[in-house]
């Protein structure tokens, strides 16, 4: 096996156990992993967004390879950019299949304004970008949600409730009672979100039934969530089991030994010395139940 893979396995095991060690208490391993995670992910997403958005979609539309030709005046600009950074602007323009769209100067300008807003005296520069975002989101979401969440769900609730082909009662598959449950449940649930009237009398009863349906739904969500979380833990442990093999020089065992050893030693020392120096900023938070 390659050295980089084995090194990677050791790093991965160390970081995994570092995060898991939080379950015992906040400790230097966790803090290290946590800070490393924050730093790496900021850089990771900067790079990902740059190489999947700014470079192909913005620069790719402003300086596309399609319009590059020796005769036109553009090569000068292209060559200049290529000289500044040959990785971002390869020779002959960016070939991502886009045509040239100068309208993309607008998002470029808004983006640059966003960056300039770091300067305190012009920090309102960011407002324009925010305004674009809010306006765009409002317009797109208003239609999308009205269509799929409102009209679409009205449509889903609309069924022939007294279908003669359906059984009256059935636990699996549609039945008349099941249709009625969906209809009544949806309407009562909606009434729970009625704000401008006191929940008394008939409305009070209906909204009570509504909250029962909401609770059943939350319960189901909870059940599925437990299922999902356990699955992910299984995945994590599978990786640790993989890395404990001889191919990776038993990375898991060694790291586990080191982390547990350190934490155990620190806890032992704490007990004897009576001060919390061994584990920096010892906190009893996790014991307060």
């Amino acid at each position: 096996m390659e050295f980089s893979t084995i090194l990677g396995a050791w790093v991965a095991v160390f970081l995994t156990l570092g995060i898991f060690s939080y379950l015992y208490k906040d400790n230097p391993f966790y803090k290290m992993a946590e800070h490393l995670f924050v730093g790496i992910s900021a850089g990771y997403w900067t790079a990902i967004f740059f190489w999947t958005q700014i470079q192909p979609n913005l620069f790719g539309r402003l300086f596309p390879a399609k319009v590059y030709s020796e005769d036109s005046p553009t090569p000068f600009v292209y060559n200049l950019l290529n000289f500044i950074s040959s990785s971002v602007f390869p020779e002959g323009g960016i070939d991502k299949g886009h045509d040239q769209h100068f309208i993309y100067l607008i998002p470029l300008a808004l983006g640059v304004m966003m960056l300039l807003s770091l300067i305190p005296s012009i920090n309102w520069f960011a407002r324009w970008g925010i305004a674009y975002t809010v306006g765009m989101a409002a317009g797109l979401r208003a239609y999308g949600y009205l269509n799929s969440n409102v009209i679409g769900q009205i449509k889903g609730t609309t069924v022939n409730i007294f279908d003669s082909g359906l059984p009256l009662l059935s636990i699996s598959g549609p039945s008349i009672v099941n249709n009625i449950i969906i209809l009544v449940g949806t309407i009562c649930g909606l009434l729970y979100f009625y704000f401008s009237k006191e929940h008394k009398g008939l409305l009070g009863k209906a909204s009570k039934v509504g909250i029962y349906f909401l609770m059943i739904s939350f319960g189901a969500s909870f059940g599925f969530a437990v299922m999902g979380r356990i699955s992910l833990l299984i995945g994590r442990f599978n990786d640790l089991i993989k890395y404990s093999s001889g191919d990776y020089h038993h990375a898991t065992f060694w790291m586990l030994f080191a982390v547990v050893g350190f934490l155990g030693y620190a806890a032992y020392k704490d007990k004897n010395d009576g001060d919390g120096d061994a584990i920096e900023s010892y906190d009893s938070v996790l014991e307060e139940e």
Partner: protein
Amino acid sequence: MIWKRQIPILIVTVVGWITILGWYIDEPTIQGFVNDDATQWFDILASFAIILGALNLIKLQVQKILYQKPGWIYSIVAVSGFVFSIVAGFFIKGVEDSVAKWGAHVTTDGTLFKWMFDYMFSPLSATMFSLLAFFVASASYRAFRIRNFEATLLLVSGIIIMVGRVPIGSVISSWFIMYLIVLSAGIYVNIWKKDMTVTFIFVAVGISIVTISGFVMGWPIDQPGIFYLPAIQEWIYYYPNVAGARSIMIGIGLGIFATSIRYVLGIERSYIGE
């Protein structure tokens, strides 16, 4: 003032109306903008914003180091992590141009960036995610209390889904569930009547009914279906659950629609701090 207030409000209104009405206008340029460009612009903007965010993060961490605030050692770790990922993302590719050009390097095997992704970024995020398994267990231990009828419904439907959906649920006989129901109903009767004799009679009668019908039917594991966990589980999530989920969905749809309309009409202007 006009640059700080009126122009942003104008941008929201104009962009908002274009994207709303654009859905109804059958014209290629406008369709192109609504279907594609509008979100692309946002993605580009968000990409610039992320640089801004990273700078802010680094500023705070560097300040921590410079003034040696508590925990500054860890800030060094954060800053080095950032520097490492920026180097892997923009300066050192780790492979030849023939394997992956700049831009393709973020998704190609063998690059430094991919190594960082495989052995640092993904174990960290997957482990953080799997911590949830532990939290979910401790939350269900401490927080899920049968305080009232609503909480009971939540718990019961949660438990049925949890057990009914995994293989172990299908080996639990419906007769076992029936005995369980008789016993828990017995507890309830005891609290209600506060009389041991009544409780005893209730439980005894219940158990004998279940046992007799069991012998009559020959103890089939999945009959009657209404007490077989995989079947109840499926019923719950197909019917009552959908009703509840649907009413929330409609409510959310309405809330989002109304809020959006308020922005577009300029009634709500809090995004610029009003």
